[in-house]
């Protein structure tokens, strides 16, 4: 017997087995449950990365560590299992058309998830009335941006992913090459969460003091978007001269420096993504239920200007704007302590997701398949039962 063939058949048998399906489902259930409980102490972002977007993880129960397969691994194997067991092995059998349809629908959901994981960006653009923007900004991801003011008032930007700086420390700084620039940037310290404060006379700063201020590291926040990262940078010019800067996600303006008579600035910020159109907030409306502080309705009237044409759109809860592959949602508003009459801002969540509508189609397919399959079974069963004396 051909050993390769044996192995092939064996693999197929393993991957198509109900036993594997059930095992994977149990693992997925366990993972979901543990991941839900872990959120209570650790916040969604961290748990999502560790439990659901991973291959392996170690779940801690007190001092005990339980190794588990991660969400990506389980779902990946499950997809293979559905392909092989739920579609390929089903061919030619009787009364399984509904089941095949359901499995196709489930695979559509998987595909939507995979595409979303690999190819989507999300963030927000926050506008006061009258303001306009043509970019949106990540809630989580960071970037280090090198800015150069241009004569026409525009800005030339070079960016580097914040994650590639996270390991920086004084003995192993992260060196960012600037091709064609008269200097290089060295990130000497990176803090995931820090506060910046002025140095007083009565205490020692744990980190270098630059221009009277220093970054004080803080423990991670449960909600990742509340972490305020800070970095110390050295700008080293070709002649060896060094300028030190302190950058913070929450600083109001970038750190400006001059090299060889040219002005530059460095900014540590949430990652920005350009939008192919410009959004201006014309009017933000918010209504409460009468005599309560409970919001009933909020909406943003925005002008969307794509350069060629411009139109007025109202975005409100459950009614997003879809344009040029981006979807804009009414996410929130603020400031939360605003008094009547104060200017309000509207925060629009922005998502680029090629698989945006796939789940809807998947849902229709699944529902159809389930109804067809179980409906037929039910009718058969009922007619048999009713016929029973």
């Amino acid at each position, binding site marked *: 017997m051909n050993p390769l063939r044996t192995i092939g058949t064996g693999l197929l048998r393993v991957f198509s*087995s*109900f*036993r594997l*399906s*059930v095992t994977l*489902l149990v693992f*997925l*259930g366990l993972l*979901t*449950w543990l*991941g*839900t409980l872990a*959120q*209570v102490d650790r916040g*969604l972002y961290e748990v*999502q990365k560790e*439990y*659901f977007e991973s291959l392996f993880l170690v779940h801690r129960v007190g001092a005990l560590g339980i190794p588990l397969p991660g969400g990506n691994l389980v779902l990946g194997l499950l997809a293979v299992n559905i392909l092989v067991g739920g579609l390929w092995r089903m061919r030619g059998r009787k009364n399984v058309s509904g089941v095949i349809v359901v499995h196709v629908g489930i695979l559509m*959901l998987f595909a*939507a*998830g995979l595409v979303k994981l690999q190819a989507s960006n*999300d963030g927000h653009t926050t506008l006061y009335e009258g303001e306009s923007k043509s970019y949106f900004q990540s809630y989580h991801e960071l970037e280090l941006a090198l800015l150069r003011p241009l004569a026409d008032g525009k800005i030339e930007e070079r960016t580097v992913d914040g994650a590639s700086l996270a390991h920086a420390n004084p003995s192993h700084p992260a060196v960012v090459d600037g091709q064609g620039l008269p200097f290089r940037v060295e990130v000497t310290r990176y803090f995931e969460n820090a506060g910046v404060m002025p140095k007083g006379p009565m205490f020692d700063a744990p980190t270098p003091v630059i221009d009277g201020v220093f970054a004080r590291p803080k423990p991670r926040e449960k909600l990742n978007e509340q972490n305020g990262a800070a970095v110390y940078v050295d700008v080293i010019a070709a002649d060896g001269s060094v300028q030190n800067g302190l950058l913070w996600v929450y600083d109001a303006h970038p750190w400006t420096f001059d090299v060889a008579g040219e002005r530059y600035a460095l900014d540590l910020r949430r990652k920005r993504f350009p939008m192919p159109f410009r959004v201006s907030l014309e009017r933000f409306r918010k209504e*409460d*239920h*009468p*005599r*309560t502080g*409970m*919001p*009933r*309705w*909020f909406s943003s009237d925005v002008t969307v200007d794509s350069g060629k044409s411009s139109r007025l759109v109202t975005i409100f*809860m*459950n*009614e*997003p704007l879809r344009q040029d592959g981006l*979807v804009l*949602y009414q*996410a929130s508003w603020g400031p939360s302590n605003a008094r009547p009459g104060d200017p309000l801002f509207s925060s629009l*969540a*922005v*998502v680029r*997701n090629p698989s*945006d509508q796939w*789940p*809807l189609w*998947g*849902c229709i397919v*699944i*529902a159809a398949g*389930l*109804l067809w399959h*179980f409906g037929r*079974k*039910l009718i058969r*069963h*009922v007619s048999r*039962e*009713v016929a*029973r004396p």
Partner: protein
Amino acid sequence: MNTQLSLNAFLPLRRTAVLLLLVGSLALGSRAVSAAPTLTAAAHPSATAVQAAPEAAPIAPAVRARPAVTARKVDWSKTSLVVAGSLPIQDGGRVKPLSTFANFTLLRLNGKSTAKDQAGEKLDSMRWLLDTFVDPRRSGEYPIFQVQDSATVHAIGLEVDTKKKRDRWSFAELRPAVPKLFDLAHEYSQIEGKNRTTMQAQVVMLAEAVDIYLGLAGFLDFARMPIPLSEGGILAQEFGTARLNFSDLVRRGGDLSALRSRLEKSDDPLEREASRELASVLRFAADLGRASLHVALQPPDAVLSAREAWHTPGELLSSAFDGMPATAAELAGLVALERLGASLGSDNTVDMAEAEAALVALDASTGPIAAARGETRRLDLEVTYYRLDLLMYALAAYILAFVLAAFSWLRPAAALLPRLTFGAATVGTLLMVVAITLRCIIRERPPVSTLYETLLFVTATGAIIGLSMELINRRRIALYATAALGMVGMFLSNGYETLDKRDTMPSLVAVLDTNFWLATHVTVITIGYAAGVFAALLGSVYIVVRLIRGRASAPEFFTSLGRMIYGTLAFGLVFSLVGTILGGIWANDSWGRFWGWDPKENGALLICISQVAILHARLGGILRELGIAAAACFAGTIVAFSWFGTNLLGVGLHSYGFTEGINSALWTYYGIQWSICALALVVGVREASMVKSQVSEPPATSARGRTTTPAT
């Protein structure tokens, strides 16, 4: 959903409290009070608080001696109760009948929607509310503040020796400790909800309750207390009287506003001084009006205004001064309220005929406007809904069904009993369907939009699944399960209402305000819950019966029951899976992501996973009848986790006591279902050993036999 108090919530409260103390002392003493002390007291609340303080010191013995109980001489007339009960009030963002307001307010304070007066006579919520409005001294004696823990009472400096650990207190008993209570509550309300100790949470809850009570008891302060003017002063000349009614002040609001700016701008220092008196009169009136912050009985006149917010008397006053004169109807309403307030005579008895006339006049002034605004269309229906109390009758029908079912187990041969059981369960279910339909009409919403309604809907849906099943296979199993499910479901929804203590038809926050998604996602997934719970119930029946009787006694019964479990699970899977994906699509449309691994989403996913796993395990021969029954029981706990458990993970749902109550119910359910799973193991092991000893028996009874084909 959260009732977190805002940081400053207790500052205005204290003012209200002080006013009430003031009013109390006025009512106690002579009703003719000279201008000067009144105005001073109003302007310096702290002064009154200090006056109240000496009372607070020797609380213990003074409080214990209850005043002589005076039985009610005359009751509210039937007309008064009916008219008052159907008065529209805007509360919690919607217009509702005053009877609903009374019901849930009393539930909130007292833990049930009836009260007892100091003599132990039972009072319904409408009588209690009218007493509180019109005769606050009397209602102050009713023990209506439920305190769970004596530590709370200790903390605010009251002696507890003569009361039980859990007991009800009257406002009169609590009154000396109110300043301390509010101070402490203000302090504790700055602690995040879940970090509060039991005592702290109880103090905050009690303070909220007292604040609510003060708002109601002080509501007619403005009507009881004409505002005195200084003798011979400019105002007394202007009005030609030494006392002003609140409604006069509102009626003359525009004139007074003009008078005030004239006096203020006058070159004559004495006229400017008169403007100070006017200012203090207005401040006093505004303080009186502020006592009624939450009782908005008067709709804005449809002709004049498209505004939505209804008015309290205090708001009518400030509008009048801001150049928006009160309409004739609004003034008529105020006058009616003043009549109602004045129906409490100087001898502290209420003139019931006068009160009735005042209520009728109030209704006549507000009803037509509210109707013209289209806000009362479903008001009568709501009054009817609560009066019919269909849910209580449904509960009774299910209990009857359950009792009949129990009898029919004792006499399996009797044919009549199962029929009666079926009849009773059907009646119960029909009542539920009618009740849910009424709620849908009243709210103009799909059947499920709050956690409370999921309970009603799951019960009704489960019962309908069960009854349909019974109609199909006529084996009585589904019927008995239906009776049990209906009874337990109704008990739970009653319990939930009591724990939640607030209107079960609330306004919805923006993201939920979409009938499309409520009708699709929420309804579908709730049907999924119902199927999951019903499958778990059938699974429990299967395991318990098989433990007692053994499969061999009636294989056909077990096969059939197993098939019912399988069918319910499959039914549930269709709804859970589609409902969960619909939820994702909704999330994608409102937040921009299909799936966010958020606890509630994960809970729904867990239900789907459990049901898919069971069906695949059945197909793969890993689980057979017994195993499926046990797995269905376990999946039932997953449904419960997803339904209620996930809400308890984060910040406390509403308040300490509430989460506590749900938690214990939840763990009881987990405990029962897991014990039944353990019983299944016992059955499996026992039957496996029987198979070993009797080799002749076919291996079909093995719970985990691999070689046998699925028993479809």
